[in-house]
């Protein structure tokens, strides 16, 4: 087996033009991850700029309402820029700068990764260009303007389904065009090796903190941790430091859109099959000839036809389970969390909240669970209003 494998998944399936750069990136990462100076700077940024550690919040009202396991929320929504994406971006952009890069490019779905990337680039003084599906620039107009305010150039992508997968295609094409001075800040635990490992390592701060916090508050490990999964970066971050703890169930919640029995979903584990795309072997939604399927979710951040290779491996080995959550369930959970806890979370994160609402009542009050609240929901308010038949101007 070749490099960067998680079981049979992963690998480096990219054009030759990018191979030397990927090899250089791997070498740089191996160096910087052990470099005390790099780690000191990153820690400083995470603490004083991103606002880490993020809170582990006991959702008392939700717990009482559901009448089962104690529910904790890992509040990644409270990070600077409003989501977990900043964890990975600060690491990658800082590394890019040290590698001598002067420009970063990135794909974005909901715009959270794009905003985080534009933010880090502004702070660290790098040029930034973001590729975002035209469909998503329309439904996440607020984030597009945020990126522009931060000095980034946003390219609406009009090819294919005009969503996240097409944004990744276009960013990869741009990287082959200009690689010398440019780093591609991949936003999820996907793509060719070493990206799935780099992004997972930078995101693993979520479970490193959460594990310490829950042991402090409860004196024991959670029975389950839950996170939404598109490419899977917040889930991988939330799972990583619990993988060795066999008693902790790892549950990824994928976007079932209008339902897994319809054509309109992005439920890769439930409905996908093994394939090779975007640099990695993993599971993908595709047709009988290996054409990548158009996928759908109300959530732009989960609207992706694949899943990171380490998730695919956790699924193969049975260590993690993946459950589909529909648009309607996610919207209800979005509203529920707002009313019950006074927290407006991202529609992506609401997929995990939705499954927690089903799971918690089946568990004992002696047990606890952690839901990763990957982002905040300001960006989604107008879309949810539209979903409910109300037209508000942003």
């Amino acid at each position, binding site marked *: 087996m070749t490099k960067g494998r998680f079981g049979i998944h992963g690998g480096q399936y*990219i054009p*030759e*033009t990018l*191979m030397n750069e990927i090899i250089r990136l791997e070498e740089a990462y191996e160096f910087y991850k052990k470099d005390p100076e790099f780690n000191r700077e990153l820690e400083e940024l995470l603490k004083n700029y991103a606002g880490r550690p993020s809170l582990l919040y006991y959702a008392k009202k939700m717990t009482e309402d559901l009448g089962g396991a104690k529910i904790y929320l890992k509040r990644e929504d409270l990070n600077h820029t409003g989501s977990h994406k900043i964890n990975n971006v600060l690491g990658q952009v800082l590394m890019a700068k040290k590698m001598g890069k002067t420009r970063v490019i990135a794909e974005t779905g909901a715009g959270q990764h794009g905003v985080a990337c534009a933010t880090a680039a502004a702070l660290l003084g790098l040029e930034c260009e973001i590729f975002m599906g035209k469909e998503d620039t329309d439904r996440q107009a607020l984030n597009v303007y945020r990126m522009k305010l931060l000095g980034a150039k946003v390219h609406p992508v009009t090819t294919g389904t005009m969503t996240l997968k097409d944004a990744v295609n276009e960013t990869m094409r741009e990287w082959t065009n200009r690689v010398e001075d440019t780093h591609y800040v991949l936003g999820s635990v996907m793509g060719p090796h070493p990206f799935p490992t780099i992004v997972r390592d930078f995101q693993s701060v979520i479970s490193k903190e959460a594990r310490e916090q829950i042991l402090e508050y409860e004196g024991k490990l959670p029975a389950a941790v839950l996170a939404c999964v598109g490419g899977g970066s917040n889930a991988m971050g939330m799972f990583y430091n619990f993988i060795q703890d066999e008693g902790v169930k790892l549950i990824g919640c994928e976007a079932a859109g209008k339902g897994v029995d319809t054509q309109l979903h992005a439920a890769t584990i439930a409905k996908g099959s093994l394939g090779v795309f975007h640099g990695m072997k993993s599971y993908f939604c595709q047709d009988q000839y290996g054409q*990548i399927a158009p996928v759908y979710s109300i959530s732009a951040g989960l609207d992706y036809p694949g899943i990171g290779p380490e998730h695919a491996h956790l699924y193969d080995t049975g260590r993690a389970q993946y459950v589909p959550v529909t648009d309607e369930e996610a919207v209800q959970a979005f509203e529920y969390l707002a009313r019950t806890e006074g927290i407006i979370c991202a529609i992506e994160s609401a997929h995990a909240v939705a499954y927690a609402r089903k799971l918690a009542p089946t568990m004992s009050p002696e047990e606890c669970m952690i839901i990763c609240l990957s982002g905040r929901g300001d960006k989604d308010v107008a879309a949810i209003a539209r979903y409910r038949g109300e037209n508000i101007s942003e």
Partner: protein
Amino acid sequence: MNRIAKAFENKKAFIAFLTAGDPNLAATEEYILEMEKAGADLIEIGIPFSDPIAEGPVIQEADLRALSAGTTTDQIFEMVKSVRKKTEIPLIFMTYLNPVFHYGYDEFFSRCKEAGIDGIIIPDLPFEEKEEVDAVSSAYDVTLISMIAPTSEERIAQIAGQAKGFLYVVSSMGVTGMRSEIKTDLDSMLLKIRQATDVPAAVGFGIHTPAQAADIAKKADGVIVGSALVKLIAQYGSHAHQQVYTYVRMMKDAIS
């Protein structure tokens, strides 16, 4: 001597690309024969893919047209079988790994052999991952063509050292598509290739004028043209025979 080697025998090879099923497979078959008649030495047949990350807009759109028209891998095999009865020109598939992987390597390459395909180019299968395919493709006498890019540098010796059929030398950074100027230092790339192998080297990406082709042919063993032909087919649809013939003829003359 196999068909690919013949394409480079005592001449500069003109390699023409088209997307299978754009605008339909009957036209694709006719255009392959037209290209041969006009002097093409080898034909690259693109199996359309939903997400062709190494392609510029012209070939992306061709893939989309072919897929929207319902073109499938099975139908492409049938078309190749049919055209193979009429010609001995080397035919090479160019596609992405997923359509091949998902079809099943063994099934895919056995059908290639049965249909008369000589080789395959897979831009998202770099040297590091090629073993996965090479063992199976070789077993069915389908040559896996390797690519070398302007960024390959010290990788050239490694890639060229194991190359078979011919080497696809990528002339420029970025994706496929017509360029006004080829800026890469092809001389030094080709020199490194020659030091590592006797396998012919053909240059592609960006070439569309006779002058460019003539210039490249002075240095390389073959010239690959894709987007310019696909653009003609986009423009004239299923009535592009004359245009395809004239263009291939002009380019072949320029390198002869």
